[in-house]
């Protein structure tokens, strides 16, 4: 972790420690085991192994729940990849609501968007790419937010004073490119580097059955550009400045959900559009069991075509979600991404179930099929895996 970032966290902690009173302490500790279906593609990469993570949570609410202080540190130890052994402050912030206004300051996570198979609009937080394989794990983002709440929506302004670099697998880790990513020597378009102040605006509103969000982001791109450094055998990261306009839209019918996310992204070098949209159809109460089934279809388009950062340029996602609605809260999600240009496919299954007091079992599996040599997924094709995670909540 960078020195300045540590200093920032320390000062925020001191600022907030005054508010610390008897709050609510909880969290979880997880043991994860991974098994890879194929031998590693690159020398140095290890087979599956164990990983242990700890995520305690302290929450204190006061003023009739209008003020909330939250602290969520995170640490993961990984048996095989030293890069995956890492810590983060997921959240350390205060939120205060007063009348139509809401204020937030500290480190936190913000989610924007509606679709299931890809999150295009979501941009505030950096992806903790090494932590999970689905891109849903995020690094805590230092931010200030002011929101004006209206009857059916809100207008929010975000000031993001510090940038977080993406995490990547090390030489020994799976889910990496042919050349591992150099996480030490990183370059930026902005001369202020990670201290460039980014800002963002989001307007969201509900019109009866339609929820719409309009977003604008101006700052350092969360996704780096890569250049191979063959002398050192690494990929160099460069973070350009980016302006992103985003739209997210959902129509909620009784059985149908229609979803759309679209972005326009502009950097010095390129200007492109990307879209993901589709539907979710639910069948309630299968038989008399109380279980429900949803079918999902989402189409992905990226105007850049097949380039390293756009695996989903003309792809279709098909999925099914089953919730048994039983005492154990058993859920399954199975899905496949199909590249309509070159027939590359990803299959993915997720399942979870409570198996005792405070214990939860999560299973995740992913495999790649018919991956085309030109597809950005080509470097991952030997990384099909089965993962079993046991989580103890306290």
């Amino acid at each position, binding site marked *: 972790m960078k020195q300045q970032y540590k200093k920032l966290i320390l000062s925020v902690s001191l600022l907030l420690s005054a508010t610390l009173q008897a709050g609510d302490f*909880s969290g979880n500790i997880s043991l994860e085991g991974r098994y890879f279906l194929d031998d590693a593609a690159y020398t140095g990469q290890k087979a599956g192994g164990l990983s242990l993570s700890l995520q305690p949570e302290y929450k204190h609410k006061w003023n009739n729940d209008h003020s909330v202080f939250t602290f969520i540190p995170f640490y993961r130890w990984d048996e095989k990849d030293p890069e995956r052994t890492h810590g983060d402050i997921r959240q350390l912030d205060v939120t205060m609501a007063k009348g139509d206004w809401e204020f937030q300051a500290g480190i936190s996570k913000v*989610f924007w968007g509606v679709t299931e198979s890809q999150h295009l609009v979501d941009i505030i937080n950096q992806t903790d790419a090494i932590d999970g394989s689905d891109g849903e794990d995020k690094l805590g983002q230092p931010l200030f937010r002011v929101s004006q709440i209206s*009857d059916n929506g809100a207008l929010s302004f975000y000031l993001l004073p510090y940038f977080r670099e993406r995490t990547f697998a090390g030489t020994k880790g799976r889910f990496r490119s042919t050349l591992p990513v150099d996480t030490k020597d990183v370059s930026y378009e902005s001369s202020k580097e990670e201290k460039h102040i980014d800002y963002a605006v989001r307007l969201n509103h*509900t019109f009866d059955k339609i*929820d719409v969000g309009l977003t604008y982001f101006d700052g350092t791109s969360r996704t780096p550009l890569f250049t191979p450094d063959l002398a050192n055998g690494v990929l160099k990261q460069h973070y350009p400045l980016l302006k992103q306009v985003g739209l997210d839209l959902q129509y909620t019918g009784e059985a149908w959900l229609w979803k759309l996310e679209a972005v326009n992204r502009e950097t010095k070098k390129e200007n492109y559009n990307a879209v993901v949209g589709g539907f979710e159809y639910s069948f*309630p109460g299968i038989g008399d069991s109380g279980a429900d089934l949803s079918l999902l279809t989402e189409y992905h388009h990226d105007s850049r075509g097949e380039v390293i950062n756009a695996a989903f340029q003309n792809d279709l996602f098909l999925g099914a979600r089953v919730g048994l609605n039983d*005492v154990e809260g058993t859920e399954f999600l199975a899905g496949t991404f199909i590249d309509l240009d070159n027939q590359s496919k990803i299959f993915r299954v997720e399942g979870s179930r409570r198996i005792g007091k405070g214990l939860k079992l999560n299973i995740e599996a992913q495999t790649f099929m018919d991956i085309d040599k030109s597809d950005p997924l080509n470097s991952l094709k030997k990384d099909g895996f089965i993962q079993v995670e046991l989580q103890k909540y306290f």
Partner: protein
Amino acid sequence: MNKIMINVALPLVISVLTLNAMAETPEAKGLRIAKETDARDVGFGDSTADMMMTLKNRAGQTSTRKLHSKVLEGKGDGDKSLSLFNTPADVKGTSMLTFSHGLKADDQWLYLPALKRVKRINSRNKSGPFMGSEFAFEDLGSQEVEKYKYKYLREEACGKGWKCHVVERIPAYKYSGYSKQIGWTDTKEHRAVKIEFYDRKGSKMKTLVSSGYKQYLGKYWRPSVMSMQNHLTGKSTVLQWTNYKLGTGLSKRDFNKNALKR
């Protein structure tokens, strides 16, 4: 009996109707009692309470869920409610916001704290179990008058020296898991004492018994125990309500999808 007349019923009209009870059809009488029950609860403003749910299977094994509930009384529309889950521990911090409407589908948003994501969800699975319990979503939703067609059956003693109206009600909303319900409501204070639920095939499926009624703000009655027995599976669920507070001064800002994250 003219339905429009009932819709504009004023207390005076109601008393006249009561005198003319002999002339009322069972349907009109059932509807009148449902409206009266609804009218008794008008004006509570908002309420907060803690709920503990104990699930018991046929073998007697139990598991519990705890949640905090907030309700805002609807003016000219259904109530707004917010449920914040505390246990099971893996769903701690999850919350659900519901804007109920009469026959129109409810608006519902779910907040998933791990992803910090607010998801608008459809409310089609009304007959689905709430948190794996014997309560379906439709059992716990806001009970608006227009959600059912009523038929008065009889008046009978219902324990504690109370007399009850026994009214049959048939869900008028879509996707209900029930063919009918039979409800016992005490004649004096209009407290729901018992409800029998009949499945789509017409078999008696579940019985809900509410007890430990307490009066708040000198007017509004709330049960402290709601016990649901499933006759088909032998499973049961008991809800225990504590820390009931009415008229706490919550506003619509506390029931906004943007406020779910707090």
